[in-house]
């Protein structure tokens, strides 16, 4: 049996005495495109951050391709929320994309010509090559997201985490991003996306984890993305969805 891309067991995370994630299990097979959905405060971002070792869990274990994250860094790419950085920072688009290569370079080594080529290549893939020399503050929201995506692409990872990549982007960019994510999956990579728009889950993703502090469900979209589970995750607030998901 192939090893899972992610194995989360009994993960519990608390801020002070308030649990953010409670005894969560999650298994993500390699080669899936997975959405993490759940209401605000359900712990979606916390989940990603704890897998990446950015938040220390109170209890539980996280394995990435069967080993602790610290040993597997080089296999993992990360796209934080667009709003988490200062877009007025004095740097160029190309420079931001090259930051994706820093992990492979390690301490002290400087990015050179090959990093530049990789970054330009990635920018080309997201349709932003002509913006390479632009100051990042001149980008629109959708362009910022594409730059972040390009930065993840140059990481050349096996497993990608993306925190709300569709937030505040226009329809064209959303389509472009989805196509790119599906290409990554076709290339055998695993992609985990914190997602907000329930309507598009069946169309974009093949695997889904539904969270609300506890794990509600985790599995193939066709099996677990049900009205019943949605109601469990969101309370009674998703009645409007039953029309789209009437197959059960």
């Amino acid at each position, binding site marked *: 049996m192939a090893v899972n891309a992610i194995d989360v067991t009994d993960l519990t995370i608390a801020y002070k005495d308030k649990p953010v994630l409670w005894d969560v299990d999650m298994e993500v097979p390699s080669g899936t495109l997975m959405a993490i959905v759940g209401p605000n405060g359900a712990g979606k971002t916390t989940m990603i951050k704890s897998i990446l070792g950015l938040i220390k869990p109170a209890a539980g274990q996280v394995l990435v391709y069967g080993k602790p994250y610290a040993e597997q860094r080089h296999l993992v790419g990360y796209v*934080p929320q667009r709003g988490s950085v200062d877009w007025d920072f004095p740097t160029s688009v190309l420079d931001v994309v090259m930051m994706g290569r820093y992990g492979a370079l390690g301490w002290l080594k400087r990015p050179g010509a090959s990093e530049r080529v990789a970054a330009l290549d990635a920018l080309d893939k997201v349709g932003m090559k002509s913006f390479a020399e632009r100051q990042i503050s001149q980008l629109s929201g959708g362009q910022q997201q594409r730059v972040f995506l390009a930065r993840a692409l140059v990481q050349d990872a096996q497993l990608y985490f993306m925190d709300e990549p569709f937030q505040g982007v226009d329809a064209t960019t959303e389509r472009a991003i989805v196509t790119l994510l599906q290409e990554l999956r076709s290339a055998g990579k695993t992609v985990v996306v914190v997602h907000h728009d329930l309507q598009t889950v069946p169309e974009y993703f093949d695997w889904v984890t539904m969270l609300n502090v506890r794990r509600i469900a985790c599995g193939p979209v066709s099996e677990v993305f049900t009205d019943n589970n949605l109601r469990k995750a969101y309370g009674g607030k998703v009645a409007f969805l039953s029309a789209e998901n009437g197959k059960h």
Partner: protein
Amino acid sequence: MSAQIEIMLIASIVAVACTLPGVFLVLRRMAMMSDAISHTVLLGIVIAFFITKSLTSPLLLVGAALMGVITVSLVELLNRTRLVREDAAIGLVFPAIFSVAVILISRFAGDVHLDTDAVLLGELAFAPFNRFKLFGLDFGPEALYTTGGILALNLIFVIVFYKELKLATFDPALAAALGFLPTVIHYALMTLVSLTAVGSFDAVGSVLVVAFMIAPPAAAYLLTDRLSRMLVYSALIGVFSAVSGYWLAYFLDASIAGSMATMTGASFLISYLFAPERGLLAQARRRQNQRIEFALTMLTMHIANHTAAQEAEIENEVVHLNEHLKWTPQFAMEVVGIAERNDLVTQRNGVLTLTESGLRRASQEFNN
């Protein structure tokens, strides 16, 4: 070397040494931390002095650096309780630590060369009197070596860890995920700020340390959009402020440190007003241009809308534009003038008609 040149040289070295970590403080929105650290290091010095009974012991530097890190930790601790915001936390921590140091000095060290005036304003004018002598030879003022050492340290740190500093400042989350330990980098930077503050303020005083750390980077931030250039410009602005400040003090017969600090402020003001892209004047000019561009488009569309009808005669009369487009007569005349010069409209008997390029502009706008 004459005393004048020595003073300017020391001040310039301090300026560059301060701007290097200062750039990262400004980009991390931690400018006020420099103010806090440059004062609280005094307590570290005082305590280290009580232990060693010497004002020249290197332990003083260690004590100062430790106190700087403690200051940052305390501010972050307070901030993390979410009961106090960061700016208030700085305002709480720094006077508390500083005042303890002041009390200790006034109570127990009254007879030592450790007075609070010197801490705040420095003794730049006396720096050349303190010579570094070896085997009876004069190797120049001592301050030249302490500040030079600090400059070298900062320069090496920024050059060696440039990539790591940039990533940890721009995107700490990615830095952590990639294993670049942004917290360690953060505290290394804070230690450097503390060492810079303590190594410099003996020469120039803490007010000038803060001025050098913040004003040149803030000015450089408006002049460029590349980090490497921001570092270079900050250093140049720092040196300019130091040298011009010296001459300002010379001609006014005033405090040297005060004049230099004033010049850092003046440098920032110049950049704030005249920076080619982001300065106040450039912004105002851009807004004015946008206003005119928009008015020209409105004018062409207005005329295009009313060409066919008989009303053209009335609607497109220059004197009626102010009614239809809600422009003042003055502004209407100005816009029409510009439109004519740009070959967008022609005027006959006070009635406007579109030229070909004016027509193109109007229809482009419709298709958008």
